[in-house]
């Protein structure tokens, strides 16, 4: 038998046979590959057929084939027995959900805050846009101060609006943004302290971090609202919103410290060695060499903590602050709009708002993670 073989004619690529390509092959491979797969597929379809039409009917207004009352409808429509979600109620109370009790003639101020925030955060989030440092300083330092004076008023002829009147999505965003902005520097210091070789500093940082990580946020908020006034010199009153902010900041800085520590540990030792071999002092090497790299690495982690914090802000409603969830909860006992689906519509709306924010941020975090991963290999 001879082995010799030389191909004279190359075989050109051919399309896959029908039974291995195209939609039918796709279904066979992905839905009906084995009998148990087929069974699972059928069961899932049965479940979906059972669950989706009622949900669709409940959520969608009638021009899309559902039973919901679209924005602009009346409360009588919502009180019909077969009515679905009462979106009319949401649209009617929308300003309450967004601004709380903020005076209507001053809405331009929160609006300006929203606009400025969007304007600053978009270029900050896109890696290609230059002037990151200026942008970051504007966002993390200047913006909060501007916001405070804009919202609180009392300067430049703007009437003063006390924090009790702030509410809704505005407060949810304020708490989560202030929480993350204040906790980043504290978190960095704590992380550096935990990595430090000095035993007293290290122990203090570990104790601080582990204490706040161990307890539920709700106990921290209780503590802040009950004990903070006790801790202050006699006669000082601490604003309710400020108490919640302190609680949230303490809590999230402990979590952020752990995120930053992850970034510090992920840096190769060589970076530390190179920095000290250049003769840089501890703070200089941290500031110029270590932190810029470590922080860039933990951007996804920071975004994830922000998502967690954003969801956790809903807990401030327990200590009586009118965040988005609390305004929805309060509005659900509004007699003018009382209907069988009032409460559930409110929760659906709040759920969708939270979901859109969190989902968008989690996608961003995943995108950044991929980008950083490939950036390092290349």
């Amino acid at each position: 038998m001879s082995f010799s073989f030389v191909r004279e004619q190359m075989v050109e690529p051919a399309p896959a046979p029908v039974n291995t390509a195209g939609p039918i092959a796709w279904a066979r491979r992905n839905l009906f590959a084995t009998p148990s797969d087929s069974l699972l597929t059928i069961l899932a379809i049965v479940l979906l057929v059972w669950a989706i039409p009622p949900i669709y009917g409940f959520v969608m207004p009638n021009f899309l084939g559902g039973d919901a009352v679209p924005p602009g409808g009346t409360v009588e429509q919502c009180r019909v027995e077969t009515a679905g979600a009462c979106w009319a109620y949401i649209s009617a109370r929308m300003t309450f959900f967004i601004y709380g009790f903020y005076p209507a003639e001053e809405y331009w101020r929160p609006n300006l805050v929203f606009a400025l925030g969007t304007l600053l955060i978009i270029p900050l989030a896109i890696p290609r846009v230059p002037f990151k440092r200026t942008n970051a300083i504007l966002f993390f330092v200047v913006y909060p101060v501007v916001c405070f004076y804009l919202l609180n008023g009392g300067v430049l002829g703007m009437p003063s609006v006390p924090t009790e009147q702030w509410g809704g999505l505005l407060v949810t965003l304020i708490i989560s943004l202030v929480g993350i902005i204040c906790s980043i520097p504290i978190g960095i210091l704590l992380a550096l302290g935990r990595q430090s070789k000095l035993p007293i500093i290290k122990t203090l940082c570990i104790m601080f971090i582990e204490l706040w990580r161990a307890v539920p946020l709700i106990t921290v908020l209780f503590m802040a609202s009950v004990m903070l006034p006790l801790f202050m010199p006699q006669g000082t009153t601490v604003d309710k919103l400020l108490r919640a902010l302190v609680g949230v900041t303490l809590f999230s800085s402990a979590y952020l410290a752990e995120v930053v520590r992850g970034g510090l540990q992920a840096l190769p030792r060589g970076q530390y060695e190179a920095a000290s071999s250049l003769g840089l002092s501890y703070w200089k090497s941290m500031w110029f060499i270590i932190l810029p790299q470590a922080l860039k690495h933990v951007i996804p982690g920071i975004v994830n903590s922000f998502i967690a914090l954003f969801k956790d802000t809903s807990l401030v409603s327990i200590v009586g602050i009118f965040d988005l969830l609390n305004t929805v909860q309060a509005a659900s006992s509004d007699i003018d709009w009382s209907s069988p689906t009032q409460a559930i519509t409110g929760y659906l709306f709040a759920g969708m708002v939270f979901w859109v924010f969190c989902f968008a941020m989690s996608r961003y975090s995943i995108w950044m993670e991929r980008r950083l991963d490939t950036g390092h290999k290349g």
Partner: protein
Amino acid sequence: MSDISSNSAEERAINASQMKVSDTDVAIDVVGMHKWYGDFHVLRDIDLKVMRGERIVVAGPSGSGKSTLIRCMNRLEEHQQGQIIVNGTELTADLKRIDEVRREVGMVFQHFNLFPHLTILQNLTLAPIWVRGIPQAEAEATAMHYLERVKIPEQANKFPGQLSGGQQQRVAIARSLCMQPKIMLFDEPTSALDPEMVKEVLEVMISLAEEGMTMICVTHEMGFARQVANRVIFMDQGQIIEQNEPETFFSNPQHERTKLFLSQILH
């Protein structure tokens, strides 16, 4: 590399030519096989008959489908057209047949794929105990025998993570041998190794060849191919371009593509 004068090229050629083509002599028969990944036609019109005791080296540029080809032979990948018959069993979706084939065909991977949570000895005895139902003591004795063959019996109770790459690959070979396979497939066994460790692995493979094991190796080690193979297969773009006895293959390549490849790989 070590001398294996007892098995010179001519002798091997004679041995091969004396082989009779009968069903019992064919280890693997691939007939008109095609494979697609989605719309990508990875393997095109593969015809290959491997005799018992044959040592085949599959060479070719990366992405030419070499690894996919041998992974089809124990159904780690499925083919869409044509036939693959291993030890007289045709590979289809039937799990029983796949089990049958896999028991008789050993495979060594580029990245070893040892089980990191088991000791070396447990790695070696796992399949004999759970697939073949061999008593533990016996399986361990066999394992120690093969560990001695690959010259690392003293590592038996260590974990894979404690061994060097070359040692791990030798353990992986021993692990396959413990199932006493009739055919061994090697998927670039030395590509992930440091240069000084390549030799120890090749030595084990050469000694296996000397014992008459049927072997199909995807490798870039042309020295190994010259020394051990009785056939070299050159693949490109998912098809077999040229195959020949190593002597002729290296000294007198026919196809333009083969010439180009050899000129780049041999200095």
